[in-house]
């Protein structure tokens, strides 16, 4: 209780996990909304505009919660991780500041126009607003992942005279190979989330026989985009990411796999419980040779086990890391199977009547959120015990003058506030789902004369 480090870590973990529930949907959904608006423009079918309008309202609620929960993330670098900010600010300050300047201004300026500006902008202008939100949110994603990638795999820096990190090569830092792989992987995952949500809403309406114009559209788009993104998230992007971990964070890979002893032709663990005290994996089910293949491209290469590394560079929670990784990978596989089967049904024209499949799609939408969260837990727990890999330990990054009670207090405050936010969010999204997609509102003229209507305008 007296060491503030745990509270700092828990607070950052809790606030970032909660925050990222919203951008992972909005980034993926921005792409699908652009698609809907584009289809509307191309085919002239107004129902695509109605579909887009419905999803834009869901997007707006998500975006609002994403914005307000995102602001504390920026500030917590300084409030809770002051030593880290002082140490690495000369490098990561660039991407964090660029995110504000290049992405947040773009998003915030066009959000209101996307949500409320359809009439004002016309069809083409509204499509451009959707495009601006898509560009802004995907750019924001890159810049923040670039920041994280520097912590995972620092490049482009030098250690300055005062011992802090300074930027030496801007482009090496900005085009960090780790950032490129992680970005591709992460953005595909966010399309998976959005696709599953769109398909789930389609299934929810189809099962009730509601909105016959829209339910099949949502199902078709959700399932097709879901299959493409689920495949891409595993291969090549996830595969690429795994190879980078194998090369640059071998100890993290060993912990992810519960791989305690070095082995040539190492097998991949499907199920099993890591037993850190006895340094072995209990009750494993293993596919032989596959870990070597995934990590290095051949079945015979040697994969280092945790035994080759001193314990003080082991990730500090091997069990949680192991389970996070396996939950992510397992769910990712199930996503491919689910959307694959659903796509086959759709191609035979049977999806809309395949009730078991519709039930499955309706209830499956939380799982991409779980997969994304456990994926990020894999990345961040695998980075431990380092804050900046190989350069600064997490234990040295916290604010020196913040007491444990203060940090615990704000953690509890966030828990309460975010609980309220979550309830409000579900309530409002529930209302939108009940309202459903439809043509734009036509307003009855106000029943009472209103003085403000007649006031001179200018």
């Amino acid at each position: 209780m007296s060491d503030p480090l745990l509270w700092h870590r828990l607070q950052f973990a809790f606030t970032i996990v909660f925050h990222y529930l919203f951008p992972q949907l909005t980034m993926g959904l921005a792409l699908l909304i652009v698609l809907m608006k584009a289809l509307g423009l191309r085919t002239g079918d107004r129902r695509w505009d109605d579909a887009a309008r419905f999803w834009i309202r869901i997007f707006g609620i998500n975006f609002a919660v994403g914005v307000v929960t995102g602001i504390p993330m920026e500030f917590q670098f300084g409030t809770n991780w002051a030593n880290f900010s002082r140490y690495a600010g000369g490098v990561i300050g660039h991407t964090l500041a660029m995110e504000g300047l290049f992405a947040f201004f773009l998003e915030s300026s066009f959000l209101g126009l996307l949500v409320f500006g359809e009439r004002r902008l016309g069809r083409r202008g509204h499509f451009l607003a959707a495009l601006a939100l898509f560009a802004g949110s995907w750019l924001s994603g890159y810049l923040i992942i670039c920041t994280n990638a520097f912590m995972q795999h620092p490049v482009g820096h030098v250690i300055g005279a005062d011992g802090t990190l300074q930027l030496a090569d801007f482009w090496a830092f900005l085009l960090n190979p780790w950032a490129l792989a992680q970005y591709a992987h992460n953005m595909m995952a966010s399309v998976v989330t959005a696709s599953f949500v769109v398909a789930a809403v389609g299934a929810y309406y189809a099962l009730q026989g509601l909105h016959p114009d829209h339910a099949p559209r949502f199902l078709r788009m959700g399932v097709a985009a879901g299959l493409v993104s689920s495949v891409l998230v595993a291969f090549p992007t996830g595969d690429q990411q795994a190879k980078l971990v194998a090369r640059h964070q071998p100890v993290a890979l060993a912990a992810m796999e519960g791989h305690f002893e070095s082995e040539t032709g190492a097998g991949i663990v499907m199920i099993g419980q890591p037993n850190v005290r006895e340094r072995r994996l209990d009750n494993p089910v293993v596919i032989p040779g596959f870990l070597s293949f995934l990590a290095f491209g051949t079945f015979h290469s040697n994969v280092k086990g945790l035994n080759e590394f001193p314990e003080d560079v082991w990730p500090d929670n091997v069990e949680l890391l192991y389970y996070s990784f396996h939950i992510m990978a397992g769910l990712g596989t199930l996503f491919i199977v689910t959307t694959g089967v659903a796509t086959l049904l759709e191609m035979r024209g049977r999806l809309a009547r395949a009730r078991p499949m519709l039930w499955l799609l309706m209830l499956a939408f939380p799982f991409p959120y779980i997969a994304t969260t456990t994926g990020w837990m894999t990345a961040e727990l695998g980075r431990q015990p380092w804050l900046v890999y190989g350069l600064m330990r997490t234990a040295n990054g916290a604010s020196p003058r913040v007491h444990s009670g203060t940090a615990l207090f704000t953690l509890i405050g966030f828990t309460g506030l975010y609980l309220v936010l979550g309830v409000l969010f579900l309530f409002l999204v529930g209302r939108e789902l009940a309202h459903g997609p439809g043509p734009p509102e036509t307003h009855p003229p106000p029943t009472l004369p209103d003085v403000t209507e007649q006031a001179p305008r200018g």
Partner: protein
Amino acid sequence: MAEVWFAIAAVMLAAYVVLDGFDFGAGALHLFVAKSDRERRQVLAAIGPFWDGNEVWLLATGGALFVAFPRVLASGLSGFYFAIFLVLWTLILRGISIEFRSHVDHPLWRVAWDTVFASASTLLPVLFGAALGNLVRGLPLDSAGWFSLPLFTDLTAKTPVGILDWYTIFAGLFALTALGGHGATFLLWKSDGPVHERSRRAAGRLYGAVVVLWPLLTVATWLVNAPMLAALPGRPLAWLSLLLAVGGLIAVGLGLRGDRPLAAFLGSCAFLAGMLAATAACVFPVMLRAIGDDSASLTAYNASVPVASLATAIRWWAIGFPLAVAYFVILFRLHRGKVIAPHGREGY
């Protein structure tokens, strides 16, 4: 180069205060200038398209500090720990109150969120004003450049200091008065009907109070930080900024009397920007002032990253800043003219 980044940070902060200031002010007056649901939606629709972008200036200012003066950012945010979270939580509640209020057509729901919005918009200017007051009064920085402040001590503005004392509370109330007046001139410009009339009265009263309080604040500042005001005569930029602030005040007065709302609003912008610029020009190069021991202060020189890094950052900043300005020009142009209160499910 450190001077340039000090100026950039000051400009971004001034942009933040001027822009988010008008929606804070409108929020603080929300319950007073808008009585019916229709009028309240008029106020929300006036700031709705802008508030989120305005708030990004806060993040962008933080970003400028992070990239150029990470020691200042680290020290300042961790030292004001509790106050920062108070600000962040209030910003969260305020943001969702604007976005969620008109989603549900129920009088209790709407009044509840109106109240949250108005309370948060009242508290935030006080907190931001008090924060600036802390920077002027000085902080108990240790030799490594860290500090930690309790929320309040004995309110005397003498060691041991707290975040709140008579000076910083005064600065907070001054900020609330000035931003309230600022928000009133914005609503005057963007609204018509009863909201317009009530905003005119509010702007007149609040700016009247500003004219009275400003000299008092100057005296108070002399009491807690005489060297800062003593530096004033030797700094032409501070003089020019003060002139801008005074000119702004006059423009507000003339604009209110002559029924030229835009002139009043622009005058109000000039007043706020001039005040902040004059303060920045007076304290330069000090960013976090150490109480008692000037050598422990964090300055633009001892807290900046190496010149090469500052030079890299200025390149992308020179691309990003005009883009941000361009978005705001587009936004203000698209939403030009008086605001129309939204109906039904569409609009704020």
